[in-house]
């Protein structure tokens, strides 16, 4: 605790001297008598002090204990005067972690509290992945005259850490389970449930596949062959290209971050349902050294590998790091800076993507981004590299914010090669400016184009919980 005097009423002394001098100059008894006014203020300042037994308690609560990334969390700070005296000027500033953005309200407040009285201040922060420790609130007391400062950190009871866990590190969410195991019928013969054909018995065929009814009739041994059921191969493709490092408004996660989160939750749900799921990410450009690469040089998590889940976690971590690195590389072009052309987050196949910008806020091009230039984020070359790594039969789940036309080209190529594609798209556009409106219209057009080429589309709107988008995604995958 620090206690210090503030000499606010030194002007009173100047006032006294001036009035005395003028009083003598004008021979004015009034001016001499008027020195009582500044003397009163001097006395007021000299005699006023913060009560010695001043004591304050603070409690902090979060409105949502387990928020998803991008969700606002209301933080409430209740301050109580525990002392016997009235605290006429109590100021408090909460210790918001630097990484969290306050988007509504203020973590600062000033109160006048009688003994036992409480006051609450509330503010909203945007949840981010990870765990964030709040510092102790700082409290400052002043007497009525303001001539003393008492400053102290007061530990806050209640919540001190805001956690936003990553999906693959927590227990599976049973609300997003599959309705049934992912299987589909093939044309190859083998074990299964549906009759396909019969053939001559060969030594070694399982007894439960012998056509006993025919043997009973004809005395011939024949073996029944069924349609083979295979577990569906699914490939989750996460679009982590720098073009996705935009936000609809300051403080919320970028489109890339939301795509990574959606991809991770989808992966978890598919793995829980027994689907063999492989994962790849676009736009990392060597930023995931711990993740093995496929034959085409892109990071690839093989769903049939032994530690697929662990490797997938590394891949999703790398995507998050890439998104944060891009934001840091464009320091000075902060998340609420650098308006983006409504037509162009369209960096296109050879795009040097922008830094972290706000979607569609008006002006355009010419943005520079080290991260954008370092990533090979599009083009027919990338499409071919992707297809080299895909298994011959798989359904593709493409998680992309659809901020440029390249994903439409990719999906079109996949559709030509008869890959079933589901596109899950977190919405990063917004409203409130002409540019944002244009960006939203262009995204809607791309969604329509995707539907036209036969892809299933699932939107994850900003106002929706991730669970709704997950449910829609799974239902689409299984239909």
């Amino acid at each position: 605790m620090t206690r210090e005097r503030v000499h606010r009423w030194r002007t009173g002394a100047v006032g006294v001297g001036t009035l005395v001098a003028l009083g003598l100059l004008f021979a004015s008894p009034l001016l001499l008598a008027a020195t009582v006014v500044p003397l009163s203020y001097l006395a007021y300042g000299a005699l006023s002090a913060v009560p010695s037994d001043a004591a304050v308690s603070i409690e902090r609560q979060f409105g949502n204990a387990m928020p998803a990334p991008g969700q606002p969390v209301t933080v409430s700070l209740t301050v109580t005067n525990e002392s016997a005296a009235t605290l006429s000027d109590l100021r408090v500033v909460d210790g918001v972690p630097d990484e969290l953005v306050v988007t509504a309200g203020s973590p600062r407040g000033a109160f006048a509290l009688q003994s036992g009285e409480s006051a609450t201040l509330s503010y909203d922060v945007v949840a981010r992945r990870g765990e964030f420790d709040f510092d102790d609130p700082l409290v400052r007391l002043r007497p009525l005259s303001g001539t003393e400062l008492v400053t102290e950190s007061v530990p806050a009871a209640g919540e001190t850490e805001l956690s936003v866990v990553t999906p693959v590190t927590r227990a599976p969410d049973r609300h997003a389970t599959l309705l049934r195991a992912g299987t589909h019928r093939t044309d190859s013969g083998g074990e299964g449930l549906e009759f396909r054909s019969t053939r001559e018995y060969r030594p070694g065929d399982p007894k439960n596949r012998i056509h006993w009814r025919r043997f009973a009739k004809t005395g011939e041994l024949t073996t029944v062959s069924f349609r083979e059921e295979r577990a569906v191969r699914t490939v989750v493709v996460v679009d982590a290209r720098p073009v996705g490092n935009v936000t609809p408004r300051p403080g919320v996660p970028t489109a890339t971050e939301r795509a990574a989160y959606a991809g991770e939750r989808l992966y978890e749900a598919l793995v829980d349902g027994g689907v063999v799921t492989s994962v790849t990410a676009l736009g990392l450009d060597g930023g995931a050294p711990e993740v093995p690469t496929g034959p085409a040089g892109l990071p690839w998590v093989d769903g049939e590998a032994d530690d697929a889940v662990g490797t997938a976690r590394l891949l999703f971590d790398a995507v998050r790091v890439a998104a944060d690195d891009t934001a840091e590389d464009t320091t000075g072009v902060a998340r609420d800076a650098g308006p983006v052309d409504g037509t162009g987050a369209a960096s296109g196949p050879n795009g040097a993507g922008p830094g972290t910008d706000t979607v569609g806020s008006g002006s355009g091009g010419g943005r520079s981004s080290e991260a954008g230039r370092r990533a090979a984020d599009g083009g027919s070359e990338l499409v071919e590299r992707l297809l080299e790594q895909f298994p011959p039969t798989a359904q593709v789940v493409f998680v992309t914010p659809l901020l440029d036309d390249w994903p439409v080209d990719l999906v079109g190529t996949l559709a030509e090669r008869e890959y079933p594609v589901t596109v899950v798209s977190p919405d990063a556009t917004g409203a409130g400016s002409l540019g944002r409106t244009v960006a939203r219209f262009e995204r809607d057009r791309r969604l329509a184009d995707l539907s036209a080429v036969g892809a299933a589309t699932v939107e994850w709107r900003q106002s929706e919980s991730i669970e709704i988008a997950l449910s829609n995604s799974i239902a689409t995958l299984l239909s």
Partner: protein
Amino acid sequence: MRDQNLPAGPHRSNAAARGVAASDGRVPDGTAPDRTTPDGKVPDRTAPDRTAGPTRASAAVVLIATLAATALLIPRVGPDLSFAIALGDALVFAASLWLVGRERYQVVGYAAAGVLALFVGAGFVLATGYASLQLLSAMFPVTTPELVQSLGLQVASATVVVFGGTVALVGAVATVGNVLRAETAWDHAKLAVKTFVVPLLVATLLLASTVLGRVEGADSAPVTAPLVDAVGGAVDALLSPVPGRAHLFTFCSLLFVTAFVVERAVKALPVAELTATRSDGGREAAARTLRRAADQAALASGVALPVTLVEFALDPAKIESAVTPPVYGLLAAVTGAGVLRWVLAVALVASLAALAVTWLLRRVSRIDSRTVAVELMPFVGGAGVVVLVALTHGTALDIALTFVADRLPGSFATEFTRQSSEVVDFYGSLTVTLTVAALLVGLTALLSLLLTVVISVEMVPSDVAPPALAAGGTFVAAAFAAGAGVGAPVVLVGLVASFVAWDAGEYGTTLRREIGDTGRERGPETAHLGAALAVGTLGAVGAVLVYEYAPRPSVAAESTLPFALVAVVVGLFLLVAALR
């Protein structure tokens, strides 16, 4: 115990980000609204703005207290119109400061502020001058000479009351939006100076053309005759010296200055860029030769200059006998040759012009068009002042002269009317009005410069400059109002209002810096300001009691000085207690 004096920087701790104050109660960097975390985020978009001044409630208290006090004080010592003029002047001044402090529409804003500079100066002069003239007309002539001193003191006090009240109103209005800061005062001063240049130049040209156009009567030109004589004598001495004797000093001086300026001008000219397409480099060589010659001439004349001072110490005859008559004759011919001096003068003027143009072009080429426009807009404002004067000079001058003459006592009015008529008849109403307008704009520049100095050297705290001006002006007005014969209640109300305004402004600024202006801080703000008002009220009641019931001190009485000393000692004691 946590360290409260925390360093600034992007990776500082949360405590700095939370605006922990340093030992003087001020908050170090860390609460600027554009603070970002290492990943580019702004962690608290509601972080207080350190340049925003006091909270809205405190600003309102400053404004209301100052308005109430000045509305009571100024009409008590002068005409009611003085208060209205002072308030209007404050509004115009605050508007000018607001215009120069804006980023948007800066070009238009600067032009408008330039025109408004005329009204700022005019308002100041009108508010104080009107009150003074009214009092003079009411109090003079006097019946006995002994009254002159006391009434004069009363008029002077009343003038100070109006002046203080005007300053207070400027501070109070500027508190709203915190438009008065060191940087805006400085920008406004620069703008006013540039604006001042245009009407001044035009007025000077008009004056000079009027004087020169009436050459025969130039020595009888009103007001400017001595100046004309002095300038004319200097020009004659420089360009048309008396023949028959040597004029070493003036010639050497002219040669030195001309050679120096010519060398600078040739060096500044972009000869290489302008002759880039020529292959022989002849012009560059000529420029180098000219520079070398000018350099040598400057060196030679500079060395000779101290020696030429001998002609002030010795007679020409003695100098002639020292250097031999033929040499002296040559020196007299060269140094007295008017043609040679005119050549040097023309070269000097041309070189100065070339330097100015080159400098201007280099500056303009380095900055963008918007900045150039903003830099030039004050001159456009000055041109606007000239146009305004040109449209209204006849009527405005008549009204002003009549107003002043009607309020001057007795023979002063007669003499003023005679003199002013002579000036207007000789120079014309446009010239006279434009000169006055230029001086008013110059007054505005001076006021802005004074404000800049006062704020920059912390005569008033820079972050609470507007409330400090409001409080200081109100205090001065209230204190001098007693000398102007205003009654005790109004004086005491003015004094209390000054302290309340100061307290509200300083407290509100600190509160906004630490917490912001969200509306949640009204509780402590109300308690604090209420207490300040209560203390002031009690003090005023105490002052009334002392004034009414204490033994009346007077300058002639022996009890006065002890009374004053008691007040000073008590004040010092309390000050020391407050400073512990």
